[in-house]
């Protein structure tokens, strides 16, 4: 639809440009001035009606069986929650949005702090996330694959690094993914992971939650299935063990201005936390 609108606009522009030099220009202006010619008025009218119809189509209601999703903007990350169709429970994740191909997801957009804007260019246009208001957008992705979403309303220092990954799955793959996300964390039962979990329960758990453990902080992203994601720090870095460890050691160097502080951990503890997080699949 967007491509169609763009085509209409460019086409009308081309027609207008062709009309301009045709015939004595004075005659054209004279006709316009005297109202003899309706041609100059037709172009805008077509565009206005076309725009109206496109807008209607984009925002048409798509039935009640839509998948319910909540996305909440935070300085500089995304809280993402799915309503479990079976239990009605909300399943929380962050910074990675999975969508089923061909099914409509109704996304309710909100903000916890300042105005952000939710935009996945390959899937739909953007809608702002306004504190104190709730906006809805229906997403019906047609193509499988990974896409990039990003904040498109200036929201502070790290607006540039407020992105998220979008994965469009086939419906069965999506259902499996959602079922996996619904489960509590299952860290590996090795001693280093256990040590990492106990370190994590200290400073990290103040802001981050890992369901199934005592870590229940709400200020930062939920890390229950952290290692299943493709990137870290809201699309800033690819998910690698080295990046995770660097991020824990120096978040302000990698994303200056991010609210996450550098927590002073011994190299051994930091290594253990990174290992623990890598097991949260």
């Amino acid at each position, binding site marked *: *639809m*967007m491509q169609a*609108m*763009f085509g209409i*606009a460019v086409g*009308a*522009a081309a027609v207008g440009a062709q009309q*301009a030099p045709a015939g004595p*220009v*004075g005659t*054209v*202006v004279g006709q*316009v*001035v005297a109202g003899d010619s309706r041609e*100059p*008025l037709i172009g*805008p009218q077509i*565009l*206005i009606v*076309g*725009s*109206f119809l*496109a*807008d*209607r189509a*984009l925002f048409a209601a798509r039935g009640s069986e839509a998948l319910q999703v909540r996305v909440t903007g935070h*300085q500089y990350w995304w809280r993402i929650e799915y309503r479990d169709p079976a239990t009605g429970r909300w399943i929380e994740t962050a910074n990675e949005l999975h969508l089923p191909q061909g099914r409509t997801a109704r996304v309710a*957009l909100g903000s916890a*702090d*300042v*105005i952000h*804007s939710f*935009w996945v*260019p*390959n899937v*739909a*246009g*953007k*809608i*702002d996330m*306004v*504190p*104190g*208001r709730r*906006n809805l957008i229906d997403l019906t992705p047609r193509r499988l694959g990974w896409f*990039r979403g*990003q*904040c*498109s*309303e*200036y929201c*502070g*220092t*790290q*607006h*540039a690094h407020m*992105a998220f990954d979008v994965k469009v799955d086939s419906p069965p793959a999506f259902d499996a993914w959602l079922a996996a996300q619904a489960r509590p964390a299952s860290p590996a039962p090795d001693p280093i992971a256990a040590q990492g979990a106990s370190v994590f329960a200290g400073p990290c758990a103040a802001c981050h939650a890992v369901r199934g453990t005592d870590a229940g902080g709400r200020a930062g992203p939920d890390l229950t299935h952290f290692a299943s994601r493709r990137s870290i720090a809201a*699309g800033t870095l690819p998910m690698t063990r080295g990046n995770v460890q660097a991020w824990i050691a120096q978040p302000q160097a990698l994303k*200056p*201005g991010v609210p996450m502080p550098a927590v002073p951990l011994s190299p051994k503890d930091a290594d253990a936390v990174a290992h623990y997080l890598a097991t949260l699949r």
Partner: protein
Amino acid sequence: MTPDPALEDQISRTWGDPPGLWGFIATVDHKRIAARYIVTALLLMFLAGMLALDMRWQLTVPENTRMTPQLYNESFSLHGSTMLYLVSVPVMEAMAFWLVPLMLGARNMAFPRLGAFSYWLYLGGVLTLWIAHAMDITPDLGWFEYPPLAGPAYSPGHRADIWAQMITFTEVAALCASVNVAATILKMRPPGMTLARMPVFLWAMLIASIMTILSMPAIMLVTSMLISDRLVSTHFFSPGAGGDVILFQHLFWFFGHPEVYIIFIPATGFVSSIVETFSRRRLFGHSVLVLSIISIGALAFGLWVHHMFAVGLPRLGNDFYTAASMAIALPAGLQIFCWIATIWSGRPRFDTPMLWVIAFVLTFVIGGLSGIMTASAALDLQLTDTYFIVAHFHYVLVGGALFPLFGAFCYWYPKATGRMMSERWGKIALVGIVGGFNLGFFPMHLLGLMGMPRRVYTYPTGMGWDTLNQIATAGSVISVLGGLIFVANAVVSYWRGAPSGADPWQGSTLEWASASPAPPWNFTYTPVVHSLTPMWDESRPLPVMEGLASDHREVLITSVTDAAPLYRQKSTSPSIWPIVAAVAVTIMFIASIFTPWAVPLGSVLIGAALTGWFWPLRPRAKQGPLGRGA
């Protein structure tokens, strides 16, 4: 009239400024004030251009860490705020200050001291923003400062206050300037210049002034609400306490959209003047041009929501604003057709000012077409807040307003200095600026369509945006080099340019009847006008009226519609009070960033200054008939 040396001597003693620093501070000569405005604005344009170059350099490669995000955010905030509040609007007012009395055959503005006050207050706003920048309290929230990001919770410190108070400065200055220009155009036209015989330039300045008077209060209100949220904990924009952040956007854009036309409409005045003179025929469709300007001025107040299509307002309402936004293409298109028809049917000469007009038409039409695309509510959801919008508004504002301004600068430069600018270097500068601009900004349309958002200090590798960003940077470098050539040409020509004489271009309107550079009193006798193009139609010497005093400052007041002489009005002499009042207002505005007590205490200070200003000295007006000259 034959020149009368004794009379000229007396008038020059009456209208001359005192020498030295005192004369510099106290002058109420509209030309000196306007020249200061223009020089200040051009200097700021240079600084803002340097910021732009810095940002372009940063975006040349992905994942660049040359600038910190804080520095980048400050740079685009300062660039946008400077260009929109401190350059574009004031420089258009300055052109009005400089040209309106000359084009009216008048000796000064309607309110000479208010003109001086406008400049000093504007300078206060300039210094507030840029001294704050030197002290590292630069605003870092864009040129719009949406709450709640600009609210006390998310922007502690004084960066946001500096921005909000700078707005108050420049808008008070703009309101004063607009009242001055509108009153001058309506009440000081020369005998015979009825509304129907008023050049398009004056219509443009009149409409832009009225638009300023109607739109500026909205932004002063909204920035004052923001300051009171920050200073005395009101909750206009705190959703948690029942406030609404969207209210800010409505009020901001109720000003913000008309502002675009406040910048653009004066430019249509420049274009009309240049096209008429260099086509050597009367403007085709004078009435159509005037009516187009009026309808653009009216429509401009019904478009603001097209900046807010992604906010989540009711869709049907958005579609209404789509229709209104597309409707503005009609009067804008009519104007373009009228200028083309004038050139087509005239005997055009292609000197530098005319080439700037042609560059304007080509560039502005591209900006208008991308404007029609963004006007569609459905399409805008993809385009808004991307580089497509950056490209669009630079095409409209640089192509639509700055190119005509540069043309106007070349066109009226001989009138201001008595010397011609170099045509050769003028053309080289034009090629550099226009070519570099298009090379720099056209790729941004594509970047926007490829999904590159605005206001990001860097972008990831592998997005496919690298090459286009590099082309854009190269274009901006070329454009800045062209700008430096333009400035060098203006500076060198000031001393080395060929003497121009009073009327080097055979212009059509009255400013060319005055000497170059115009003396402090502009015209010894008041011209009498019988057509739209008096310099082409009247016999030589021009028909004039005498009767204005030469031993004290006097101007002629005429009726609004028919320009029939009504009475002679005393015009003020150099005065210290405008700068005193401006300093008092500056103290209040800056202190009110820190304490609410600044408002009552500062009001006392301003009251004292205004008491001095309005202290009655002499009778204001003299009744009586005017002698009629040969």
